[in-house]
C-alpha cells in the first residue's frame, strides 16, 4: 500500500490553522504507523484492533471537542479533520471514535450532572473506559420515538426493560448511555441512563457475519429487570431531542469521516489507473477512466468545502441539524459512489483485500444507513424547505 498523501486540489490547507494542520499530521501519522498494518487482518478476522485504543487516548482524540474534564478542546474543524484521517484508515476506526466522543461523551457532557461529568469524561477521554450509545432498537431505526425500552422508577432505582440493536462498541463498553421511556408510550418521557457493564440484568451479544464494518464491534444490548441506581439518570436529558442532539454531533463527524474514505479510494484508483496497462497504454489514458477520476476529484473537493463550511458554522453556532443532514447525506453518498467507481477501475483486483476500495465500499454501505439513512436526511431537508413533513 502506498503512502497516503491526502487530496487537496483547491489548496484548502490555506483555510486551516496551524493547529488544525498539526492535528491532521498527528492523526495521519498514527493511522499510517499503528492502524494500517493491522486493518487487513482485522477486517478478515472481523475484529476491532482494541490494542490501538490506548494510543488514541494518549493522542487526545476522544472528546477532543469538549472543553475541560481532561479533553483536548480543539476547533470544530480540527475535530472534523481528525475524523477524516481516522476514516481514511477504516470506517470502523472512525465509528469507534464517533461513538466514544460524539455520542457517549457528548451525552454525558450535555446532559450529565457535574459528578457524572467528573467521574466519566476524563476516563473516557484517556480511553481507560469505553462508552457506547443505545438508541436504536430492532423495530425502531428511523423512528426512535417508537422505542419500547422503558425505565420505570422504583424507590431509589430505575428498572429497565427492553433491548437495543446495532450498538457500536456495545460489548466492549464499560458504560452504555441508554435511552429509555420513563413512562410507557410517551416519547416526551425519554431519558438517558448510564448503565455500567456488569449491572445485573444487563447483557450484550455481538452481531456476527457482517459483510460491512467487519473491523468494528456491533452488538445487541438487553435489559431484563435491570436495576439502575437513581443517580445514573442523565438529569438534564428529556425527550427525543436529547439523543438527536448527540446524533447531530456524530453526523458532523461522519460528514468529515466519509471524505477520508473517499480520498483513500480515489488515491488508490488514480495510482492503479496510471500503472495498469491494457491494450497499448495505462488505463488512465482512456477517456472513460479519466471521466471517472475527474468526477471523483470534483466530488471530493466539493465535499471538503461543505465540511469546512459546516465547521465554521459550528464555530459561530449557526449550524442547524438540517445543515448537518445535507453534509452527512451528500458526503457519505459521494464517498460510497466513489468507492464503487474505484472498485470498478481496479477491475478484478479490486475485489481482493490487497486493495482498500472494496473494504471502504462495504463499510460505507453501513455509514449510508446509520445515523439517519440517506432517505431520512432527504426528508428532513424536504420538510425544512417545504414546511411539510413527509416521513410520518
Amino acid at each position, binding site marked *: 500500500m502506498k503512502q497516503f498523501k491526502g487530496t487537496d486540489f483547491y489548496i484548502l490547507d490555506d483555510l486551516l490553522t496551524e493547529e488544525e494542520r498539526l492535528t491532521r499530521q498527528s492523526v495521519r*501519522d498514527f493511522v499510517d504507523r499503528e492502524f494500517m498494518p493491522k486493518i487487513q487482518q482485522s477486517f478478515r478476522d472481523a475484529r476491532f484492533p482494541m490494542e490501538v485504543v490506548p494510543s488514541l487516548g494518549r493522542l487526545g482524540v476522544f472528546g477532543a471537542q469538549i472543553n475541560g474534564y481532561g479533553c*483536548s478542546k480543539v476547533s470544530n474543524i480540527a475535530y472534523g479533520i481528525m475524523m477524516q484521517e481516522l476514516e481514511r484508515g477504516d470506517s470502523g476506526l472512525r465509528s469507534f471514535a464517533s461513538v466514544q466522543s460524539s455520542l457517549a461523551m457528548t451525552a454525558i457532557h450535555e446532559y450529565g450532572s457535574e459528578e457524572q461529568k467528573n467521574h466519566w469524561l476524563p476516563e473516557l477521554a484517556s480511553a481507560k473506559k469505553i462508552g457506547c450509545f443505545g438508541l436504536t432498537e430492532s423495530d425502531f431505526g428511523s423512528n426512535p420515538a417508537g422505542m419500547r425500552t422503558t425505565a420505570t422508577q422504583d424507590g431509589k432505582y430505575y428498572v429497565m426493560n427492553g433491548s437495543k440493536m446495532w450498538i457500536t462498541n456495545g460489548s466492549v463498553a464499560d458504560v452504555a448511555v441508554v435511552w429509555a421511556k420513563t413512562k410507557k408510550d410517551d416519547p416526551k418521557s425519554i431519558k438517558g441512563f448510564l448503565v455500567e457493564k456488569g449491572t445485573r440484568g444487563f447483557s450484550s451479544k455481538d452481531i456476527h457475519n457482517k459483510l460491512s464494518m467487519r473491523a468494528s464491534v456491533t452488538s445487541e444490548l438487553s435489559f431484563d429487570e435491570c436495576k439502575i441506581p437513581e443517580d445514573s439518570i442523565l438529569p438534564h436529558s428529556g425527550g427525543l431531542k436529547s439523543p438527536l442532539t448527540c446524533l447531530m454531533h456524530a453526523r458532523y463527524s461522519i460528514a468529515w469521516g466519509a471524505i477520508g474514505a473517499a480520498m483513500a479510494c480515489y488515491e488508490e484508483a488514480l495510482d492503479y489507473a496510471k500503472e495498469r496497462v491494457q491494450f497499448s497504454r495505462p488505463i488512465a489514458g482512456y477517456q472513460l477512466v479519466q471521466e471517472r477520476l475527474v468526477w471523483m476529484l470534483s466530488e471530493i473537493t466539493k465535499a471538503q468545502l461543505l465540511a469546512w463550511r459546516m465547521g465554521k458554522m459550528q464555530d459561530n453556532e449557526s449550524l442547524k441539524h438540517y445543515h448537518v443532514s445535507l453534509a452527512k447525506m451528500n458526503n457519505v453518498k459521494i464517498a460510497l459512489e466513489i468507492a464503487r467507481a474505484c472498485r470498478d477501475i481496479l477491475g478484478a483486483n479490486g475485489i481482493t483485500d490487497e486493495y482498500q476500495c472494496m473494504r471502504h465500499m462495504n463499510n460505507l454501505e453501513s455509514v449510508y444507513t446509520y445515523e439517519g439513512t440517506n432517505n431520512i436526511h432527504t426528508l428532513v431537508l424536504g420538510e425544512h424547505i417545504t414546511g411539510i413533513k413527509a416521513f410520518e
Partner: protein
Amino acid sequence: MKILVTVKRVSDPEAKLKIKPDGLWIQTEGVKFVVNPFDEIAVEEALRIKEKQTGEVVVVSVGDKVVTEQIRAALAMGADRGIFVNYAGSYDSYDIANILAKIVEQEKPDIIILGKQAVDDDMGQAGFMLAELLGYPQAAFASKVEITDDKKKAKVTREIDGGLEVKEVELPCIITADLRLNTPRYASLPNIMKAKQKPVKELTVESLGVAVKPRVTVKKLSEPPKRKGGVKVESVQDLVSKLKTEAKVI
C-alpha cells in the same frame, strides 16, 4: 539540563517537486512543508533526555515568517520554547553555523542536537561547522545517546561502515541525529493546543551581530535523468555478451 535543537523547514520528502524556470530552486506553490525528518528525530531525542534528566528544550529555526510553523510543530511535540531568527535571504551552511553559534552564546545549552542533514539540500555541514566555531566536541550520526550519571558527558553510539562506534564527549557538545536514533512521537492534541501558548522569541541576524555572506551558491538544479526501459534478452549468450560489452561489468 538545557538542550538546544534546530528545526529546518523543508519540502515534504513525499512531494513531487518541480524546478523553477530559473533553475535555481524548486517551485513551492502547492508543496507541503514539514520539519526536516532528521530534525524531528533530534527534537524527539532532546525530549527523551529532558524526560530523564529534567530541564528545558529550546528549538531554533532560521528563515522567513513561515518557519514558525515548524517551530510550533516542535513545541507541539513537547519542546518548551522557540527562537525564530527572522531572515528571508539566501544562506549557506556556514551562515547557519554562525547564527547558531551566537544563539549558543546567549542560551548556553548543555547539548545542541541537529539533524545530521536537511533533506532538501543535503548539505550536512552545519553541525560540524558549529562545533568548530564553538570549539565544542561533536558526535555526528548518532544512533544512541546516553548521558553519564555525573551529567558531564554524553556516550554516543554511531553507525559506521560494518559496525558501531561508541564515543564519549564532554558537555557541552554537539550531536547530530541519524535515522535510527529514535521514532519521533506524534504531537498529542492537548499538546498541539498548549503549543499556542508557548513563547517564541523573534530575533534578527543583525541583532545577533551576524553578517550573512553565503560562500556557496546554487548555480543550477536539474532533474535526474529519465530511466531508460530495460530490454529482454533472447538467450544466456546474449545476456553475457551484453554484460561484457554494454554494461561492462564482467
